[in-house]
């Protein structure tokens, strides 16, 4: 598996913050790998994802896509946000085609195919204001995929949805990613989501934000959330998360986690 994405010792301090938000993040992600990033609120997951998308430059270190440093957004990767943020003056189709428009391309068949895939072909000419929350996120997914990215960055894109819609969309995205060989990096609060979608789960701790451990998910596809295997993996991840990050409300002080970060635990594949 060739390296798609490498994060080379990123440290980032926001202006006016006494401690770095991210410190010494080092990570390599292979082509077609599906990665979940879990960690408590405020540990810097979104910040890291924005850097991968080229929407934020780290104060130290850099991100490379296939060896080339990321300095700005590109059609080769796309980020999906927690809020779908569709443009309310446009139809479903216009929203989905926007990336192609910006690239000066026209590919109505591809857009049609994507709308079909997310189950919104019959609503293509509807104004997006009359769609449900789940449908909004589906349009956002079609919009993200329209420019044929190789990498999809997901920042808790399903967290505002009800459990059923969320599970359906998780499976949809996983399937699409596997079929098209997309690399996937997703941020989530939800251990179940991580186990449902990822090949490898990275655990982050806060103050400063760093990766303190990882776990490989040994499940095939599609994944049955009701199976004993699934429960076992979920429990293993839960336990590891609690050992590394702690179950209490206070994030652990710095010294604690950094020994772990040097020796991330790995499960045998």
């Amino acid at each position, binding site marked *: 598996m060739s390296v798609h994405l490498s994060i080379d010792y990123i440290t980032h301090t926001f202006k006016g913050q006494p401690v770095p938000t991210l410190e010494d993040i080092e990570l390599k992600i292979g082509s077609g790998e599906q990665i979940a990033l879990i960690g408590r609120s405020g540990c810097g997951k979104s910040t890291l994802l924005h850097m991968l*998308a080229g929407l934020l430059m780290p104060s130290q270190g850099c991100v490379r896509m296939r060896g080339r440093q990321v300095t700005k*957004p590109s*059609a080769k990767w796309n980020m999906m946000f927690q809020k779908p943020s569709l443009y*309310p003056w446009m139809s479903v189709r216009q929203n989905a085609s*926007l*990336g192609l*428009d*910006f690239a000066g391309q026209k590919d109505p068949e591809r857009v049609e195919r994507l709308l079909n895939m997310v189950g919104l072909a019959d609503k293509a000419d509807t104004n997006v*204001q009359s769609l449900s929350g789940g449908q909004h996120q589906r349009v956002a997914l079609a919009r993200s995929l329209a*420019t044929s990215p190789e990498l999809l960055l997901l920042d808790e894109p399903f967290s505002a949805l009800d459990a059923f819609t969320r599970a359906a969309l998780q499976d949809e995205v996983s399937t699409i990613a596997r079929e098209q060989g997309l690399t996937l990096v997703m941020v989530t609060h939800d251990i179940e989501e991580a186990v449902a979608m990822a090949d490898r789960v990275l655990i982050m701790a806060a103050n400063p934000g760093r990766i303190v451990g990882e776990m490989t998910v040994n499940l095939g596809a599609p994944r049955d959330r009701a199976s004993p295997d699934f429960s076992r993996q979920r429990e293993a991840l839960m336990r590891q998360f609690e050992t590394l990050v702690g179950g209490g409300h206070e994030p652990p002080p710095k010294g604690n986690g950094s020994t772990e970060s040097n020796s991330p635990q790995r499960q045998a594949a």
Partner: protein
Amino acid sequence: MSIPLPAMSNMLRDASGGFSWRGALRGLMTGVGYPAIGILVLLAVWWLGGWLIASNPATESFADFAPGPAFARLADLLGNGQVLEPVASSLYRIGLGLLWAVVVGVPVGVAIGLNAALREISHVPFQFLRMISPLAWMPIAVLAFATWDSAIVFLVTVAAVWPVLFSTAQGVRRIDPMWFKVAKNLGAGGGHMLRRIILPAIGQDIFAGIRLAVGVAWIVLVPAEYLGVTSGLGYAINDARDTLEYDTLAAMVVVIGVIGFVLDGICVQLIKRFSWHQQD
């Protein structure tokens, strides 16, 4: 004064979908009755004023201000087409003035809406300039422009630019920051951002600003036309006063009011047209 048919037919139905007399009455009142009452009250006050003027020996000579002579004169002016020339001149000046206000106000509004530093820098100068009555610019305008016509257009622009500028800036500041982030993430350049995101997002704010601008511009235009020029509605009013044709004067006032009303109605339609909020 017309109400859209679907709204009308909704009003004619009660909750069960059947016809209701009370609903029909309410529909008729809001659609036709209330505006008619407003117009009648206005005419009554005018008529009463005319009657008071006519019955006082000291003001008797102004009796032609009353609705009767005024509407008779208005019918004449409409019939022989004499109303067209002043209306055309005034509309031309206000149109050109508004155009300049948009050409200056929208870009500057977008710039100060996007850039906090620019907003801070421009705050005091803009608030200061805004408070100066457009008519106070008259001496400067006369010096700066070769013709009275362009001086008047300048005054209209000075009056109209502020509402357009501030409404545009406010619209830009209300744009959801995620819309910028998502567009950037989809590869939007500066031009895309402006044409595909910013302008559609603030279309209704721009036209809301233009609506306010039309109001003040129309008010400034008439006194501006008292000076120098020999055309337009302001000139016509001044001329009628000098020649003691008070019925013509009152008829011109009616024309000014009606045109203002129509221009405002056009703006309301444009605001609706460029609003992306879904109507239900």
